[in-house]
């Protein structure tokens, strides 16, 4: 039905969109793996970070790729504080409460953005936004190629943090056996907050990578996060390689179903994958049996 001339670029574009999805999902899966809750504020945090990237460029002329180095630490601190000062004390250690508190925070963050910046959609103009590279059989947009590469750098960094630092070891210990970790002197509240901070930093980096080629408005994060949920479920909750591979798969599924079904129905493809995976294999393709 479609010739390879259309199909191959669609797959490549899907892979590159999928990489950014994967990064959003990485933050989500990290938090789930350790705190065992789904962070419903993830989308609102993505929107907030995209606004931060927008204003860094708009007010100070800082290129979004450079701004990553400011916004990621900022959001790490914000995420840390959010968990330590709001989510943890408010939820009394109950999972269901934690779920509701993150939902409450999502509502607040999203609507503060709406209140402050209205529902307008904004974009930034970068000289290289529409530059492409010719890879022989097709053209690839530069911002997407950079995003694709950056996601793998972040994934390797994250792997290094988890495996080569004491904090990373402590995070893995808490994820495995919370009580045991606590008994060996690990400050669980601190590790929870560190994890939440790392997850939030992932989302902030994703925001900076998206900004050159995407728009921002107060609800922009929702679309990404619903996709990220799908990825996390597909890849197995708490699994980092699962999030990466899941992200790429979902990017391609979206791109292809958009091609075959049209854009608004393309999203349905993702949700159907999501529901079917949840119903048939809720532990995901890479997750361990719960």
């Amino acid at each position, binding site marked *: 039905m479609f010739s390879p001339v259309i199909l191959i670029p669609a797959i490549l574009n899907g892979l590159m969109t999928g990489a950014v999805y994967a990064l959003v999902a990485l933050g989500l899966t990290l938090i*789930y793996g350790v705190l*065992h*809750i*789904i962070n*419903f504020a993830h989308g609102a945090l993505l929107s907030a970070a995209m606004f931060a990237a927008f204003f860094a460029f708009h007010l100070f002329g800082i290129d979004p790729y450079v701004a990553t180095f400011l916004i990621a630490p900022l959001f790490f601190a914000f995420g840390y504080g959010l968990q330590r000062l*709001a989510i943890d*004390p*408010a*939820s*009394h*250690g*109950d*999972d*269901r*409460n934690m*779920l*509701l*508190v993150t*939902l*409450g*925070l*999502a*509502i*607040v963050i*999203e*609507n*503060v*953005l*709406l*209140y402050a910046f*209205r*529902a307008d959609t904004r974009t930034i103009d970068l000289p290289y936004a529409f530059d492409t590279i010719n890879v022989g059989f097709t053209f690839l947009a530069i911002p997407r190629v950079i995003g694709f590469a950056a996601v793998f750098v972040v994934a390797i960094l994250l792997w290094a943090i988890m495996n080569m630092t004491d904090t990373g070891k402590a995070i893995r210990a808490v994820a495995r056996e919370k009580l045991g970790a606590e008994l060996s002197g690990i400050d669980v509240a601190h590790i929870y907050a560190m994890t939440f901070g790392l997850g939030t930093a992932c989302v902030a980096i994703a925001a900076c990578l998206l900004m050159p080629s995407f728009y921002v408005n*107060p609800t922009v994060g*929702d679309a990404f996060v*619903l996709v990220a*949920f*799908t990825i996390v*479920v597909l890849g197995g909750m708490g699994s980092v390689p699962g999030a990466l591979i899941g992200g790429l798969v979902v990017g391609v599924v979206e791109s292809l179903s958009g091609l075959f079904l049209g854009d*608004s*129905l393309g*999203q*349905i493809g993702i*949700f*159907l994958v*999501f*529901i079917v995976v*949840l*119903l*048939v294999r*809720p532990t995901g393709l890479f997750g361990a049996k719960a």
Partner: protein
Amino acid sequence: MKGFGTIVLVIAVLAAVPLVVHSNSALNFLVIMLLTALAGQGWNILGGYGGQYSFGHAAFFGTGAYVTAILQVRYGVNAWPGFALGTAAGALVGAVIGALTFRAGLRGSYFALVTLAFAEVLRILASVAPITGAGVGTLVKLDLHASALQFESRAAFYWVILALVAASLVIAHAIERSRFGAWLIAVRENEDAARALGVDAFKVKLGAMTISAAITAAAGCFYVQYFLFVDSGIAYGTRMSIEALLTPIIGGAGTVFGPLVGALVVKALGEGATFVAGDAPGLNLIVYGCVLVLVIAFAPRGLIGLFSWRRAPAGKREAAHG
């Protein structure tokens, strides 16, 4: 029968309000408040008593709204049977989603996610399907006669929604006192233990979800009769899912009057915020979100719990930490 007496008293007092208050905007506020309380009572049956936190109750609200509207507009069905069929359709959607998710053993975060996803799928379908009017939505013809379930006076609408809320209070009260309610609460507190004692957790949760969906769908049916319009964002948008869970959580999940108290507080605060800071987009939702977090932090059993003479079940907080 103490609880039943309280219901009669509260409804009697509320029923007298239009005799004293004649302002259309005040009645309009109360109608919307009761509408939210009804949707919230639906959520409360499943979430409050059963502990299954749905983040997608809009799926039922929207189905009720669309079925009522479409039956009238496209098939010439009278509004009264339309209302009943809308409620039944909502219950059916609830039963199907419940059967699929509970059969798959989804709990906690997973259940919240999958209900959210179902609502989103329905929203996208409704925004493109011709039968729902796609992006334009569906308008119900104005016909201000009781035979068309439309009324010229706000007071009549008020009494209709109040009757529905009264019915939902009676249902919640009946569940609370029934064996089914005891099973449901057992499943909430510890599903595995309940199973070990011989409770058929799947059946109990499925039953709760069906009743829950029917009540929230009835709120959707009423919405259409009152506003005579529905589109995919109103019907299946996340806003409705959020309001449905917000009201019982804030008022007191798993209590008969929780959703009513929560709806009153939430809507009053929303109005108050608009009054103080002007009609800015997002403002009342900021208030809702803050109240939600504050209530969970300082009144985990909801506002009703603050004034309840009954003590919290012993050892519950310790258990939550384990």
